[in-house]
């Protein structure tokens, strides 16, 4: 990016140049081209429904995010104990045990990041043409960060999956994923789709 050079002036875009940019490889084509001749991706100047999809996935992610926090994430059964733990409950329990670091990691990965993602996507979708708070470059960077970080939210689900598959000692100790694990995985997937549906080119549209 050579932002300082073009500050103040409208950033030239493929669209403003009457061309269609390939979102995958970046090559521009004349209008009317259906497929990218370099990478074979379908070309479209702007997807008019992109924002709708963003919101749709966003809502779907939000809907499943609630059960992910209300219902138990892990169902632990040992000889003397049978319990279910929610995400937040687990954090509180870990804090109670003094495991501040692990508690923070879980809190960060399972609460802060998903919530931050929701906020970031909503912010981007709402302020796509309004750059009062963040300029185009910052918005673009924010979108890149959201896209990048999305897959790491699955760390929670991975932990559950690993625990559930490793801790299987029949009667002695068993860990099963709860309904929240599925919800959480869905929520992460939906927000990733939501972030992916976002067409960052629209940030630059006037």
């Amino acid at each position, binding site marked *: 990016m050579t932002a300082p050079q073009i500050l103040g002036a409208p950033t030239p875009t493929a669209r403003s140049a*009457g061309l269609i940019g390939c979102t995958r490889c970046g090559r521009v084509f004349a209008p009317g081209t259906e497929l990218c001749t370099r990478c074979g991706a379908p070309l479209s*100047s702007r997807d008019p429904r992109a924002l709708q999809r963003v919101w*749709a996935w966003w809502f779907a992610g939000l*809907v499943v995010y609630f059960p992910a926090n209300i219902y138990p994430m892990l169902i632990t059964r040992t000889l003397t104990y*049978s319990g279910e733990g929610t995400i937040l409950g687990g954090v509180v329990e870990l804090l109670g045990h003094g495991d501040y670091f692990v508690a923070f990691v879980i809190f960060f990965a399972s609460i802060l990041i998903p919530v931050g993602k929701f906020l970031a996507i909503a912010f981007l979708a709402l302020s796509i043409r309004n750059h009062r708070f963040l300029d185009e470059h910052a918005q673009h960077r924010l979108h890149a960060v959201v896209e990048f970080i999305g897959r790491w939210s699955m760390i929670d689900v991975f932990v559950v999956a690993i625990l559930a598959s490793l801790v299987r000692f029949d009667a002695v100790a068993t860990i099963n994923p709860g309904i929240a694990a599925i919800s959480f995985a869905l929520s992460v997937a*939906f927000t990733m789709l939501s972030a992916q549906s976002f067409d960052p080119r629209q940030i630059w549209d006037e």
Partner: protein
Amino acid sequence: MTDPETPSPQSDVPQMQVTPARKRWWHQLSPVWLVPIVALAAALGVAWQSYAGRGELITISFQNASGIEAGQTPLKFRDVTIGVVEQVNFGAGLSEVLVNVRVSKDVAPFIDGSAEFWVVRPEVSVRGVTGLDTVLSGAFIAGRWDSESSGARNSFTGLEVPPMLGGLDQTGMAIVLKLRDGNQISAGAPILYRGIEVGAVGAPRLADDGDGVLIDAFIQAPYTERLTSASRFWDASGFDVSIGPSGVELDVKSLASLIEGGISFDTVVSGGDPVNAGDTFEVYPDENTARDSVFTSANDATLPVSVVFDGSVSGLTVGAEVRFRGLKVGQVTDLGAYVEGEGAARRVRLRANLELQIGKLGLGEDATPEQAIELLGTFVQNNGLRARLTTASILTGGLLVDLVELPDVAPATIRMDAAPYPELPTSEAALSDFAATSQGVFERINALPVEELMQSAIDALDSFRMLAADPATRRVPEAAVGLLDDTRALVTSEDVAAIPAEVRAITTSAREILNKIEEGQAVENLIAAIGRADRALTSLETASADFPAITAEVRSIAEKVDGLAMEELLASADQLINSADALIGTEEARALPAAFTGALEEATVFLAQIRAGGAIERANSAISAAEAAANSINEAASSLPDLSERMSGLVVSADGVIAGYGERSRFNSELMSVLRDIQSAADAVTALARTIERNPNSLILGR
């Protein structure tokens, strides 16, 4: 592709192809919207389902909610979890714990008035370990109810102890057992039929009238056929020690029944009527009593009366027999003291309440208490029927109430107005059999024909004198001398001298009786015997204390003997002496053969002695002869301490019998080691139970 609505700053560039807008808004909708809609619908559906299907909330109140955790403790029906405790809080006034349980919806309608709830905790008892799964998983609430739904409720009172075996879903019969006390039976104790466990009892509870203890019991199905109205139950707890001809027998039932108690039953005779659920059976203290009870009268109506005693009733216990002419007709049901009179006349009297079995008074099957009390009243007035205390057992010192008919007693009546029951008149207690026996001995001595003897002696002397005076007699002086000898022998020795021997014989026979008692049935219950041996000794001491009185009586006998017609005797003797003198002085007498002369010389010496002493000495010697009789009696009396000693020795030996079983004997050491083994077994079980209670993990970890 032109888009007139999108003005381009660069006119030379081709216009963008843009989708024509302004279609209906739903045409612009992305199909992706389906995803959140489906997700929302699913979420709402799940939420509604979990709300609608969350089941009924029922409240169970417990006194003790140990082990119950909110959100953890399940409610199980037939070992299947049908609900989970949602909340644990306190009832009004913190007097009970309310446990809210969310019960599965399809089961909830069946939880109606028939439902019972209890907490299942691990329990280690002598009969085994139950609820072991709860050691690991924690306590759970178990419930049971019948399979008909009749008006579901949602508030219940939980049972503090698990209900006994059986119940709503098990076939069998619930009956009620009645015991005198419940300290030998604990909940869950087995009911045995010929040694096979056929049921169990619940927790003992006090009868409504406070008289006895009731226990719910359950007999399992095939064995209920063994149960008829002729069945008798008895307490099979603990162990029996019996001393019989075959030696000492120790009968220990199962270890469980030893510690936890147990009840056996048997149907002794055929022909009993079938029983209904809920019938009450009495539990007899032991098997013999139970079996005997079958043959007692069918009329089990009882007549309560009370008896007031002045003296000590030490040794009289509740349950002691009431006998009438040797037959048991009832028992003591209650003992108590009360204050009678006012002011200085106040005194404490002891009242025993008796329960007489009307059927045993000979009034027939249908006699009523009114008839019975009327009969007793007649007996009291006409036959001198009195209640008195009698020693039931010499060894134990136990007392029983004897209804005796005494011929010469002051007239009395039954006090019908006495509270709480009509009061029977009493007579002086025949407290000690020893005393009674000794007294009997002296009554016999007293009844000996001493007076007649004296009279006979006098008569004999008279006759002798007449004989001596008779010329015919002078021809046969040896007859007179022989008679004199006989008389002397009679007065001085044999019969009277035999009296002490007789006393001894009686004593010996008394001792033999005791020996028989020892051999026969002396110690039925060793523990009780040891416990009460002290009282036996005390009672014997009391008996010994009575001896001075007896001695005094003997002395009075002696005095009586002294006071007999001595003067007459002396006068007769004087005359006899004179006549004899005259007789001896005759020539015919001198002509008697040497042998006869020897006899006569003896008589002469005797007479000379009497004569030489003068009137007073004669009297003295006559008296001394009589006194010899009295002395003999005195000797008998003086042998009383000896008798007493013998009896003491008897007691000591009786004590020794007991002590033989008490201190160091092999039997005892065996018994002790048995008991010690049982004790250590019980200790081990207790320790195990405690360990598990403290550290349930030890079961898993092996520590």
